[in-house]
């Protein structure tokens, strides 16, 4: 509680009048700094399948100021790390560096926003091979593929768009498509967030403004519409796909578009989670004790700006054991819906959820993934409200959320040997 309160003070959201970029930074006095530019250029906002994935790989390629090679070599000389990561809603372009080098790295980020060149030869020579390698790995990773399928079932369009551009999608993408998505994302600077750690927010704002204005003056493009996506709707459904690259995977999940449910889901996810609190032991939750040997399970809770997907991923080699584990997960949810949760279990779940919420923003990536969307939506860069809301969850709220979820249409994905893996009704899902 104390820590979170300090965090809230550490953050200040600066809305600069000249450009409107949202700047937030936290400085704990660490030796390294990081700056992340968060754009609304996730797969949700893409106009053509796979463009967002290509754009994320186009980060740090040639700009009006320096070439791709120059960016990399200069960053190496400074000892910095440049990276970009894509989520369904946001594209995060990150630079991590030693204190004192912020001028160069902020300039690299600003030049990507203002004067990226998106040349055709870079697309074919450097970007597409990386895109295809990433999508190849994703396609052969059971849990990633199960989540892709689950999102497509749960949200169809928008949040359901594939995160990875496969060979077919990437083949149809031109440099102009990529430029259009980037232009759309930066057209309204109010939908761009600059997040820093280990740097003062006013300094970050000044540096970014200066670099951005300098690059923008050199290159001007036509005005484009700001990124917009229709509101998410949850659908649900079930699918089975054969998969022969490792463990078989089953995903059982539920989605919601109600904001009040999203907060209670933190606690439900903690209640269901079979992950032990102590290393090399087995968890003590009802689901963990029912989990057969040789099967691993984890809860997945993915909150988005207007929806959330919650579920359990069960992975294992043996379809029979997977069936038993998935059934145990559904039974645990049903027990929670029936109010059969002891007050100790509720306390434990709430404490775990609060730890997850508060601890999530301590790390650098948590700052981006948790606080970034909050800064963009103008909620202020603090998790205080979420902490308080999770704290208010009691047994009744937990059983209500579980009951509400079970009444909705579940999202069920079976990946592996489709002849042996269970169907939704065989593990106790009613409407799958």
């Amino acid at each position: 509680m104390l820590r979170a309160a300090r965090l809230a003070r550490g953050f200040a959201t600066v809305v600069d009048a000249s450009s409107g970029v949202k700047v937030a930074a936290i400085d704990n006095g660490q030796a390294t700094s990081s700056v992340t530019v968060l754009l609304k250029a996730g797969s949700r906002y893409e106009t053509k399948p796979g463009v967002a994935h290509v754009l994320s790989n186009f980060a740090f390629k040639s700009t009006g100021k320096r070439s791709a090679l120059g960016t990399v070599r200069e960053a190496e000389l400074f000892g910095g790390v440049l990276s970009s990561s894509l989520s369904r809603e946001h594209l995060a372009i990150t630079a991590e560096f030693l204190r004192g080098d912020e001028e160069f790295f902020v300039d690299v980020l600003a030049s990507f926003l203002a004067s990226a060149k998106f040349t055709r030869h870079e697309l074919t020579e450097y970007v597409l091979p990386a895109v295809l390698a990433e999508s190849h790995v994703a396609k052969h990773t059971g849990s990633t593929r199960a989540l892709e399928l689950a999102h497509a079932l749960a949200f169809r369009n928008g949040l359901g768009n594939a995160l990875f551009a496969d060979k077919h999608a990437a083949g149809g993408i031109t440099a102009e498509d990529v430029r259009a998505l980037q232009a759309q994302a930066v057209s309204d600077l109010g939908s761009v967030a600059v997040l820093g750690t280990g740097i003062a927010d006013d300094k970050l704002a000044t540096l970014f403004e200066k670099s951005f204005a300098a690059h923008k003056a050199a290159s001007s493009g036509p005005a484009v519409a700001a990124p917009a996506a229709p509101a998410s709707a949850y659908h649900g459904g079930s699918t089975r796909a054969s998969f022969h690259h490792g463990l078989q995977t089953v995903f059982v999940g539920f989605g919601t578009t109600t904001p009040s449910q999203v907060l209670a889901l933190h606690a439900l996810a903690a209640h269901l989670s079979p992950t032990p609190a102590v290393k090399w032991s087995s968890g003590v939750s009802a689901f963990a004790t029912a989990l057969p040997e040789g099967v691993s399970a984890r809860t997945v809770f993915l909150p988005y700006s207007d929806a959330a997907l919650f579920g359990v991923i069960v992975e294992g080699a043996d379809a029979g054991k997977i069936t038993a584990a998935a059934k145990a997960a559904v039974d645990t949810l049903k027990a929670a819906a029936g109010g059969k949760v002891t007050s100790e279990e509720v306390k434990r779940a709430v404490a775990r959820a609060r730890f997850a919420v508060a601890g999530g923003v301590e790390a650098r990536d948590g700052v981006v993934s948790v606080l970034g969307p909050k800064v963009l939506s103008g909620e202020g860069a603090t998790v205080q409200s979420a902490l308080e809301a999770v704290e208010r969850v009691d047994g009744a709220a937990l059983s209500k959320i579980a009951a509400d979820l079970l009444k909705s249409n579940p999202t069920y994905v079976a990946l592996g040997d489709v002849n042996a893996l269970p169907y939704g009704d065989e593990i106790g899902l009613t409407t799958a």
Partner: protein
Amino acid sequence: MPGPLGVSLAPYVRSSRSLYKFLKPVANWYANLSGYRKLGFHYDDLLVEERPDVQRALTRLTPRETYDRAFRLKRASQASVQHKELPKSEWIKPEEDVRYLAPHVLSVAKEDQERAVWDTINVERKK
């Protein structure tokens, strides 16, 4: 060392208005006389392509440019086998003779040059 396009005085000639006016008709006459247009070639089809930078530049052509280039090469080979020029209707007109490959070659050469600079850069500790 000369770049992939060889040594050229053209930039100097172009910078002087009177020199340009004086030499341009001679250049046009020479280009027509050399006869490559009568075999259906563009000037950039004649660039020496047996070197890595030009090979890389060739990969940067659009599919359409690559196709047209291959077509011109085949058509010219056929004309050569037959010891004939193309019919006059198929001659390349001066305005069609554009440098479609040279910009790519120059950008590749610039990249190579930049790489060489970074590879041999002398780094000094920040004071």
